[in-house]
């Protein structure tokens, strides 16, 4: 199986879908001549030309809305936000337009647009460039929210997202673009709404998505040296959530620790914890625990910023806590 970088897996997905379907185009800031702010779209302008790889001015509301309108009449736009922090300039187009077109029109129009770009924090980018906004979009009926944690998932999920007839918020991990991983040979897709057990275990379910998957896997390694066998579950799609996979895992292990990069209040983890409390109440040996970033805007100083984020050590400690092991 080929080994590729996360960014290349995304590029393969876009290129394959663009070859397959002439109605797919990519639009965003620096996607063409600059080869992409994070080099995800490197080489695509040369391959597909400027009719289909379109450099946009800095006008998120404008080009996001353009994508929504083009999708309404049957095109299949990929709209890139340089980061999801900037998506807030366009949030009205996503939430009040893309998500609601189908219902408002009585089913006449749908909106097969894929909004994609990196979400969450990188390093020392400070308050306005470091937020994890998946909970904002996961809140909205009519949207799908997808967050791949490795190259295999990135390619398979992006292909499915582009083919999906609904608006998809595809949130990548800014610090994961250079991560390498095996991907299947040849054509493959991964369905939306289906999670994956990244590591089988028996003692506790660690739920994490995007960057938190690797944090969870590293925590599981630490715990393994202490004789604790943790299961790591990656929902992969936040909305619609693979609730059955989560319930089956928590029923098996009896404990759950959720790892979330975002702010704690009304985060995705809160929704997952609620659902577990509804369906696994009698199976839980400890309340669902949650490790998020500190409830503050991201600071600039390197060590201070690192100290507010989930880490494998903090995650392992929390798993031991729910096992009443100190």
């Amino acid at each position, binding site marked *: 199986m080929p080994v590729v970088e996360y960014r290349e897996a995304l590029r393969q997905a876009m290129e394959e879908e663009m070859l397959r379907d002439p109605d797919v185009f990519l639009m965003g800031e620096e996607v063409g001549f600059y080869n992409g702010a994070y080099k995800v779209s490197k080489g695509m302008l040369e391959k597909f030309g400027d009719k289909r790889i379109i450099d946009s001015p800095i006008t998120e509301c404008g080009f996001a*809305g353009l994508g*929504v309108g*083009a999708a*309404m*009449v049957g095109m299949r736009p990929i709209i890139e936000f340089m980061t999801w922090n900037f998506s807030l300039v366009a949030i009205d187009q996503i939430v009040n337009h893309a998500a609601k077109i189908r*219902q*408002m029109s009585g089913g*006449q129009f749908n909106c097969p647009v894929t909004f994609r770009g990196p979400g969450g924090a990188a390093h020392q980018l400070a308050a306005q460039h470091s937020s994890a906004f998946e909970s904002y979009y996961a809140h909205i009926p009519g949207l*799908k929210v997808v967050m791949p944690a490795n190259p295999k998932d990135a390619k398979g999920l992006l292909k499915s997202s582009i083919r999906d*007839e609904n608006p998809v918020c595809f949130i990548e991990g800014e610090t994961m673009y250079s991560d390498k991983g095996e991907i299947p040979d040849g054509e493959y897709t991964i369905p939306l709404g289906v999670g994956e057990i990244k590591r089988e275990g028996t003692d506790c379910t660690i739920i994490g998505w995007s960057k938190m998957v690797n944090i969870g896997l590293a925590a599981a390694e630490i715990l393994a040296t202490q004789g604790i066998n943790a299961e790591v579950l990656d929902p992969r799609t936040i909305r619609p959530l693979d609730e059955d996979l989560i319930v089956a895992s928590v029923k098996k292990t009896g404990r759950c620790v959720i790892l979330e990069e975002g702010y704690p209040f009304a985060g995705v983890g809160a929704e997952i914890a609620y659902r577990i409390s509804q369906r696994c109440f009698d199976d839980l040996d400890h309340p669902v625990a949650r490790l998020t970033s500190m409830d503050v805007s991201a600071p600039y100083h390197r060590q201070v910023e690192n100290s507010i984020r989930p880490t494998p050590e903090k995650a392992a400690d929390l798993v031991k806590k729910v096992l009443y092991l100190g």
Partner: protein
Amino acid sequence: MQAQEKLNLLKYYRQMLGIRRLEEAAAKAYSQQKIGGFLHLYIGQEAIAAGAVGATEHGDYFLTSYRDHGLAYAKGTSARACMAELFGKETGCSKGLGGSMHFFDKPNNFLGGWGIVGAHMPLAVGTAFASKYRGDGRVTLCFYGDGAVSQGAAHEAMSLASLWKLPIVFICENNMYSMGTPLSRTMSVEDASQKALAYGLERDRFEGNDVLLVRDRLAVAVKRAREESRPSVIEIRCYRYRGHSMSDPGLYRTKDEVEEYKRKDCLLIAERHLAGYGIGPEDLKAIDDEVKNEIEDAVTFADESGHLPAERLPDFNYVD
């Protein structure tokens, strides 16, 4: 030519009268609580809808804000589908799910019906982008009000349309009041067509109560979009006789002002044109009766239709 123009005029007159009576019936139904929420009437602005449809082809896309009934009706949505939508019935053009502000009609290329002021304008740029990408020859007409001119989305839309030379006509239906606030208090430059200068676009500006003039002047911009793929910014000065919506008591303008504009009513002007073609009061009465029947039928139809139950709503979240 003359014979065709006479037929055109009769068609436009019928459309404008249809809108007028539809809106009057909607106002009445609202007071009977058959229609709820917001209701923004197009009364007084009818010539813009009829003129715009007269200047375009069936395949051209129309997008507008929430004052959408007149444009949808002129574009081809039946009175029945309009009234049923207003009453929230399943037989409405949006299956009763949208209501007054969200008329959609795919077969007639009426693409909404939008509630966030100015926010539909980037969508219109998107449909124009799709047309150019496909080379399908369609033009997008994007209607908005004087209130929308200040919105960021309006500028982003014009900026992109100009940069990428898209087949779109931006049409500001300037009825000179944003809800209760007059132009002088919302726009530093009251000529909304001047926004074209900022983006290197062609522009035009005229009064909107003569349907023939509206049609002919819009036809220039439509031709520019279709043949040269160049956008235009058009300001059409008009007037709404009723308030911004049903809950607006209209305290911000005088009765004299409203009466002054009614003397320039688009139906009166069209009747004068028609007289020149030998269409007299008896012919007009026949049209009036026909429209009366059409609208009464629409109200009955809407009254007798059922509505979608809540259990069906989740079906509309996603296409499977």
